């Protein structure tokens, strides 16, 4: 029951937001009735309310939102005549929805509104509406007396803007702390006689540092919540879906230790529900089908979350039938999303990517669960709005994995600062396996014949890869400082200079800057300048498409088993 209450609370909070947005959209529809984006947004909104309410058995809400959805579906397909009545009908519907949701009057009689919408639909489409009729007419009265124990939404909604301002003051304070920490030493070198003063100052600055750090972690504590908070509703969702679809589905939740901004965790629940519904509805096969394919009769949907570099990954995977790129393509051509003459030139990844196009749907039948041409584009839009990325991977017959990737809002990472040309850059220490100097005399044009390639390193210049301005003179160096990144055992990257290992408060970049190659963020240095935080994976990917400057034989590392590994005290 606790879980039910929690779900209901989340539903109420989310639906109130959605209804508020819809009110604005209905107003714009009055001014600009032909705007397809507005109709699309309204459609998604009622679709979300319908989907969520059906899991809570709020039949009145489901019936009404289903009717409104059908209306909007026709409108967005250009099949609705008498379109001028759309804002009025939607207002009628949202007023009732608001009364039910905000007033928690779930037993409200909505039959008049549903009937008004259906009459309008029938008025220009005499053929019976397959989807609309069923739940609307046979909607039984709500059985649960939810209003007996009225639910309080105990959320404190603080505007993102306010928190952003607090964070910006906190990071300014951090900056000040960095520069103050240097003062005692500078004081003593300027005036050795002031040693006493220096120690006093060191003590005070030390206190300030501790306070500033704990302030920072407190602020993060407010904002960061475990990602698996968003997972809580899913075991139940999967159970219900399995029942409805007549499939055996098991949900596995792995790991889930990663933390993300509270705002993001709340906002991903809805797109994740879409993805899980898709996995259960389209991905997982029926037990008979699975057995025929040599799989266990019970399908599995897995949820995982983990940290890598400066990103939080959330993974939803299933061991179902996978997505057939060619079928996706055929459907996209049929729907006019891809011109037929371009179809042949698409790569497998591009074919799969068509799933994210607006209006795309694979479902042969319209179901209550998914498959009304809404889903993947909604997911992608929602995730992109949160500065996240959706990565899709599917193997036919083996299953589908969808990764949602979010930059950490602000992470503190111990980083190796290096010079790349004249630009200060930082690489998080946990992504560096080795830093090593090689001499010009060791440089080879290729790996010698018959030698083991694993014993050699391909050399690349980060400056050349990112800024395309590696000068020939730059390669005449006597000695190369190189970095070897984690998971890249045969590549080494030249930097101009190593400087220091320091704590770096990594800020995520605005999306348009983050789209630039090789970056994962930026950090402010003690002198107030900005250092670029490099993304080793992205740099290695650029190197993959580039010819190396040459090869060197790996220096044999002398591993000393005594004492802690390097940087262990820092990490």
């Amino acid at each position, binding site marked *: 029951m606790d879980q039910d209450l929690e779900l209901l609370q989340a539903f109420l909070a989310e639906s109130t937001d959605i209804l508020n947005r819809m009110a604005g959209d209905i107003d714009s529809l009055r001014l600009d009735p032909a705007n397809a984006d507005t109709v699309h947004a309204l459609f998604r909104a009622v679709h979300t309310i319908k989907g969520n309410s059906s899991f809570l058995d709020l039949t009145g809400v489901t019936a009404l939102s289903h009717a409104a959805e059908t209306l909007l579906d026709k409108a967005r397909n250009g099949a609705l005549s008498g379109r001028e009545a759309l804002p009025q009908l939607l207002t009628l519907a949202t007023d009732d929805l608001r009364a039910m949701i905000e007033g928690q009057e779930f037993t409200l009689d909505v039959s008049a509104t549903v009937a008004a919408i259906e009459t309008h639909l029938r008025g220009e489409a005499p053929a019976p509406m397959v989807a609309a009729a069923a739940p609307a007419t046979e909607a039984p009265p709500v059985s649960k007396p939810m209003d007996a124990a009225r639910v309080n939404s105990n959320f404190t909604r603080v505007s993102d803007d306010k928190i952003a301002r607090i964070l910006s003051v*906190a990071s300014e304070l951090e900056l000040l702390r960095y520069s103050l920490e240097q003062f005692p030493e500078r004081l003593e070198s300027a005036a050795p006689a002031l040693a006493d003063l220096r120690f006093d100052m060191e003590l005070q600055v030390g206190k300030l540092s501790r306070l500033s750090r704990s302030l920072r972690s407190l602020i993060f504590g407010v904002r960061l919540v475990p990602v698996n908070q968003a997972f809580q509703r899913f075991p139940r969702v999967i159970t219900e879906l399995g029942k409805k679809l007549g499939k055996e589905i098991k949900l596995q939740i792995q790991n889930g230790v990663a933390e993300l901004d509270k705002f993001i965790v709340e906002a991903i629940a809805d797109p994740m529900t879409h993805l899980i519904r898709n996995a259960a509805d389209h991905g997982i096969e029926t037990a008979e089908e699975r057995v025929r394919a040599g799989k266990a009769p019970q399908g599995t949907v897995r949820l995982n979350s983990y940290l890598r570099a400066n990103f939080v990954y959330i993974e939803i995977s299933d061991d179902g039938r996978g997505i057939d790129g060619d079928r996706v393509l055929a459907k996209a051509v049929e729907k006019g999303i891809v011109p037929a003459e371009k179809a042949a030139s698409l790569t497998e990844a591009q074919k799969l990517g068509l799933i994210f196009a607006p209006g795309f749907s694979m479902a042969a039948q319209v179901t209550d669960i998914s498959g009304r041409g809404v889903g993947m584009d909604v997911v992608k839009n929602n995730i992109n709005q949160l500065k996240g990325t959706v990565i899709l991977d599917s193997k036919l017959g083996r299953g589908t994995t969808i990764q949602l990737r979010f930059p950490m809002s602000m992470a503190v990472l111990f980083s190796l600062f290096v010079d790349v040309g004249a630009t200060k850059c930082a690489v998080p220490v946990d992504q560096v396996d080795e830093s090593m100097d090689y001499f010009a005399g060791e440089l080879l044009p290729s790996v010698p014949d018959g030698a083991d390639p694993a014993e050699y390193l391909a050399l690349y210049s980060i400056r050349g890869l990112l800024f395309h301005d590696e000068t020939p003179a730059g390669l005449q160096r006597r000695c190369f400082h190189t970095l070897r990144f984690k998971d890249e055992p045969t590549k080494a990257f030249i930097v101009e200079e190593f400087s220091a290992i320091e704590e770096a408060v990594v800020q995520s970049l605005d999306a348009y800057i983050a789209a630039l190659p090789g970056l994962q963020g930026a950090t402010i240095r003690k002198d107030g300048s900005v250092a670029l935080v490099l993304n080793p994976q992205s740099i290695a990917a650029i190197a993959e498409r580039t010819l190396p400057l040459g090869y060197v034989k790996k220096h044999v590392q002398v591993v000393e088993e005594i004492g802690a590994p390097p940087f262990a005290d820092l990490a």
Partner: protein
Amino acid sequence: MSRRDFLVFEVGAAKFAMPLSLVEEVVPAGQITPVPDAPGFFLGLSAVRGKVMGVVDASLRYGIGPSLNSHFVVCRVRGNLTAIAVDRPVVAGAVPVRDLSPEATEEKRNEAKIDASFVVAGFELLEDIEGLEIDTGVTFLEIRPDLFVTTEMALRTGEG
């Protein structure tokens, strides 16, 4: 005559105005760190009050001569804080102005050789502004930072 809230600034020899509501603050220019694969007018990243933001060179963006870039005008461009490097902020506040006709604006724009796509309108200063060395009759061109939106596009295509 009307008074409107503007930030008035100079870039090279040209004088511009930006609706004050779009401006977060004006700060002396800070150090700029160049970023890979950005178009020329995107100078790089700088930190303003603990926040890292992109810096756009107004003179390169408007297509006029080189400038000193002594100040950053921090404004919101499509929800992202962005610093626009300018020469000299002149005045911020209610400015007594007379609007120019579209033709006159066009003429001024040609005179200053400014990319038309950034100019919203032109206007003329009607009174001396107290304590500032501006003559009446000076023409300003009104621009809006949200017109920099092409910046984002140019940068995205740079990803290629």
